[in-house]
């Protein structure tokens, strides 16, 4: 680009104005980047959810418990490869603010169904063998400074023990990590033995929260789901089976309006920004009418003057947007660790590209009117008039 020095000089003609305009754009795209990463946190891992897994819950609500005998019944359904189950413990570690999920599960089948949960073989065996054993996600272990061998006390808000106390204590026998960093947010929990859970509480025994099924062939999922529900339709505890992806998405949909609010905010921000930058570009071109006229006099075509102004606008917007997005990508992960449930907050490359594309669009919209004006400059009037 042999005209680059020309454009660069034009950009920095009025340093203060350019810097301030760029800073507004940086801030706008910082906000864009942060909001995109919050949206990413909401949708984390949903796309990578086991496409071949189904989740079976009580028909009327996820909070409804179901008979343990359903495990065998589901296994007998044609198309089912493997079944596991889990329940909601609903405990609190020290204070309500330290929120993370705890699930009583069957160790062997759960780790088979979720192969993306990885931990050393000896820890896995310890989990299977230890009645009061528990394994926990690495991110939680780091946050609360737990090591293998620690005793983790959890206060249950739902399930008392047979002796009436609410205090459940688990032996930490393993620390696991998710295979994909992106799905870490999906597997941020503590697992312990369902058998221990069942035998220690005074009511609701033999009941389980939900079942997870792996099918023989993902293409048969819909059919298998229907077959499972048909089996329990007329029983005391009818079920509802859906793909794991749909199951996870329904939680996000319940938060519903939050995502559309984020988009609304971004819309308002960009509209404001549009007017701000548009004004700056218009000002800048207005100031340089004599220069542009001179350029035309020495032979620059109308088209090239239009291009010069447009490229200047592009440079301004893209540079500032890139800076804003980079800052957002640096800020998002540390911010995410501060908010419970948002560890997956990060600015994905796709979102960054979308941001840059948006910046280019912004530049075109704000740059076009002054660029057209520059193109149509009448040399004589321009040189004399101003």
């Amino acid at each position: 680009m042999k005209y680059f020095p020309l454009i660069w000089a034009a950009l920095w003609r009025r340093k203060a104005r350019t810097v301030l305009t760029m800073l507004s754009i940086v801030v706008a795209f910082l906000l864009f980047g942060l909001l995109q990463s919050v949206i990413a946190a909401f949708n984390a891992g949903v796309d990578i959810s086991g496409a071949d897994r189904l989740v079976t819950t009580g028909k009327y609500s996820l909070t409804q418990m179901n008979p343990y005998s359903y495990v065998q019944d589901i296994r007998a359904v044609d198309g089912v490869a493997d079944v596991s189950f889990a329940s909601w413990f609903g405990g609190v570690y020290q204070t309500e603010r330290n929120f993370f999920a705890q699930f009583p599960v069957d160790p062997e089948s759960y780790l088979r169904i979720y192969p993306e949960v990885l931990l050393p073989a000896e820890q896995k065996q310890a989990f299977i063998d230890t009645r009061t054993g528990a394994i926990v996600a690495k991110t939680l272990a780091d946050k609360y400074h737990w090591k293998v061998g620690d005793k983790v006390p959890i206060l249950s808000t739902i399930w008392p023990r047979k002796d009436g106390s609410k205090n459940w204590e688990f032996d930490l026998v393993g620390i696991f990590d998710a295979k994909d960093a992106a799905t870490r947010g999906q597997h941020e929990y503590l697992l312990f033995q369902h058998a221990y859970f069942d035998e220690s509480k005074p009511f609701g025994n033999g009941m389980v929260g939900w079942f997870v099924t792996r099918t023989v062939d993902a293409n048969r999922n819909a059919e298998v789901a229907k077959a499972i529900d048909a089996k329990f339709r007329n029983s005391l505890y009818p079920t509802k089976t859906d793909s794991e992806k749909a199951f996870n998405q329904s939680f996000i949909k319940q938060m519903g309006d939050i995502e559309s609010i984020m988009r609304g905010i971004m819309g308002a921000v960009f509209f404001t920004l549009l007017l701000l930058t548009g004004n700056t570009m218009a000002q800048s071109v207005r100031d340089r009418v004599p220069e542009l006229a001179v350029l035309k006099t020495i032979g620059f075509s109308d088209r090239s003057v239009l291009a010069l102004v447009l490229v200047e606008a592009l440079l301004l917007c893209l540079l500032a947007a890139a800076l804003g997005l980079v800052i957002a990508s640096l800020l998002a992960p540390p911010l995410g660790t501060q908010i419970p449930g948002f560890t997956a907050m990060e600015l994905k490359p796709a979102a960054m590209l979308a941001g840059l594309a948006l910046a280019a669009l912004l530049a075109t919209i704000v740059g076009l009117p002054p660029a057209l004006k520059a193109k149509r400059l009448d040399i004589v009037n321009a040189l004399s008039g101003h």
Partner: protein
Amino acid sequence: MASVIQQIGAVTRMNLATVPARLGTSLVIVVGIAGVVGVMVALLAMAAGFKQTLASTGRADRALVLRAGSLDELGSILGVEQARLVMEAPGIRRDQGGNPLAVGEKYVLTDVVKRGTGSPANVVVRGTLPEVTRIRPEFRIVEGRMFRTGLREVVVGRGAHDQFSGVNIGDGVDVRDGPWTVVGTFTTGGDVHESELWVDDSALRDAMRSAYFSTVVLQLEDATPATLQKLKDHLTQDPRLAVSVQREPDYYASRSQALNGFITGLGYAVAVIMGIGALFGALNTMYAAVSSRTVEIATLRAIGFGGLPVVVSVLVESMILALVGGVVGAAIAYLVFNGYSVATMNFQTFSQVAFDFKVTPALLQQALVWSCLLGALGGLFPAIRAARLPIVDALRAQ
């Protein structure tokens, strides 16, 4: 030599009179601040609306008895015998016949499709008595009728009726063990109960084959601390009971902390970030305003106007423009969002809460203060620069 006040007045008037000549750049401040204020008011109105719905829930003279250690109604379980023991405790108001004004309620969740999403959401089902107004006098049927004892009938809260589909009178909504018939719509004064479905407690427990209540709701003799303490002492000292008692408002306040904090935090964070962006825009505009009037300002200084009047006039111009922007933004937020109904999941109770955006006078005040602040900051440095212009150079320039 005119006094400083007169000088300030004169220069300011002159400044403002020339604003129309700089309409384009002045609009930048107005629009920028309008955008910031509009978004901030909208988000904080959401927090305010949610807070008001939760805060208006419950009365100081009504208490909730949960199983000890349970944080919310969903995780609480009370046996029939335990409920009976609770209802015999001192401190509970009694009616003419000497019966305690207390009711055992069952609290479960059911999936109901949310309007516009086509996706199911966790809605609260409360099993209570048809005569619930004895204990909840704010309850009133607005359409249709109340459910009858033992029958699988549902009355729907106003908020739930607006936010979820399939809950009109005559519709069948899945509660437990098949669809139940909606027979009416109720109001409880705009609180969180309007997001719920109320059914007959015995019908619910029958459909669930359950002998357990979730909670006992009771009317205290009065709202004094002494009465609550009397009840608490009696209940905690009974070895057959393991329960906790709290006033209803306290319970609902604790259940709204997380969502409230999240929305409010989001609102302020966005307002600050956008404010910074708008600040740069304001600075830009005011620098441009000052530089376009360099000769004027220098002339004023040359004929004897002091530096202070110049600074004040620029500041006033900036603040007035920002204020106009703030008013526009707040007005738009009010017109578009006030009363707008929304429902979202309260993660603490794992159930949907329907509420309206509330643009309160306090919020509008905050908005105007914030815009004045931004206007002042945006005008400060340009104002100082204007006052410090070297007069001779400025007169010669341009």
